[in-house]
């Protein structure tokens, strides 16, 4: 037991030393454009690219976990797949701080009344929807998304597009 405590204490100490640099002091950007369900549904119907919609809020702890993953996926697949963040039940300030903290470079829209997830089907945050061109829902991920699921569904979107 003493050994176990020692290992845990060492890990926490190492984390403390390496994690001290990560701060929340990035400058915050411009306000997010407001959106609603009708606008997003129209976008999905008219798109010729696969679309990933991630519904998030700045106060949501799991959203923090997946934000860096989504940014990494966007950096890698952003040319072939459209990434769209929809901020819900939040404030403009909170949303902008979150985007600045994680350096999110994909498009984010503001939907305080949660009309988009209500129309797409889903409650709570985070939610991630994978749409084929034309708006066909390929996969819906309620809750936090992990790297494997994200990579698999991205591959599915790209393979379907390639095969069609």
């Amino acid at each position, binding site marked *: 037991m003493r*050994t*176990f405590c*020692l*290992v*845990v204490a060492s*890990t926490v100490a190492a*984390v*403390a030393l*390496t*994690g*001290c*640099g*990560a*701060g*929340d002091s990035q400058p915050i950007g411009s306000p997010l454009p407001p959106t609603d369900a009708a606008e997003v549904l129209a976008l999905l119907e008219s798109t010729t690219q696969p679309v990933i919609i991630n519904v998030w809020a700045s106060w949501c*702890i*799991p959203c*923090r*976990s*997946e934000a*860096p*993953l989504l940014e*990494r*996926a966007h950096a*890698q697949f952003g040319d072939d797949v459209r990434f769209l963040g929809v901020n819900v039940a939040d404030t403009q300030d909170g949303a902008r701080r979150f985007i600045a903290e*994680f350096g999110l470079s994909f498009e984010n829209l503001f939907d305080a009344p949660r009309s988009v997830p209500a129309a797409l089907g889903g409650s709570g945050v985070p939610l991630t929807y994978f749409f084929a061109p034309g708006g066909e829902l*390929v*996969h819906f991920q309620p*809750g*936090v*998304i*992990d*790297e*494997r*699921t*994200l*990579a*698999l569904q*991205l*591959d*599915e979107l790209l*393979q*379907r597009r390639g*095969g069609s």
Partner: protein
Amino acid sequence: MEFTLLWAAATGVALALLIAQVEKRWGLIPSETGSLSDLIVGAAVAGLLTGRLAAMIITGTNPLTHPADILIVRGGVDTGFASLGALTFVAVAARRNLPPTIDALGPPALAGLAGWHAGCLYRGACLGTGSSLPWAVAQEGSNVARHPVEIYAALLFLAAAALVLWWLRRGVRWVGAAGATALGMAGAIRLATESMRPSLGPGPVGWYLAAIATGIIGIVGARARARSLPR
């Protein structure tokens, strides 16, 4: 909240404990080792914690300012650091009797990894890259058939666990070699299946190669140690 990864971890620990019980019944655990079950549970917790903390730091989240994020295991567990955390725990906890202890830990660890990979069934995450093989599986509503890669990994880990267990039962001449072989096999199995796993990067290939190299060094070291001991 998403608990399926924790279920996968629980399945892995349960399988490891089961194999440890088999070893105990067959008298394969050295008396100086103490409780193998405590070591397994401790290593699993240390591995999960270290891997999660590492994943958070790597992705830029400070665990000190956001401690609740540690619990969001699905947000990511770094495989390499998780393995390092588990191995460090074992090395420290069993330091007085390390070589025979790692031999005894080999089969439960491999079986535990089999359980962890089979845990993909809970979360619908067994599928990998596209395949035209007859047993390839498509996800619901899709016509893209894929390798059930995590099932391959689970079966390979189970076979490896059975092999090392059989070796232990026959008697290991070079103490520590069975544990080192288990480590090398774990790296090799992950490496062999990695190309079938969709991922956002190259995957932790370096860690797998390090595990294989450490396993080989361990076997050579065990052999040298056995030869240096008076008969």
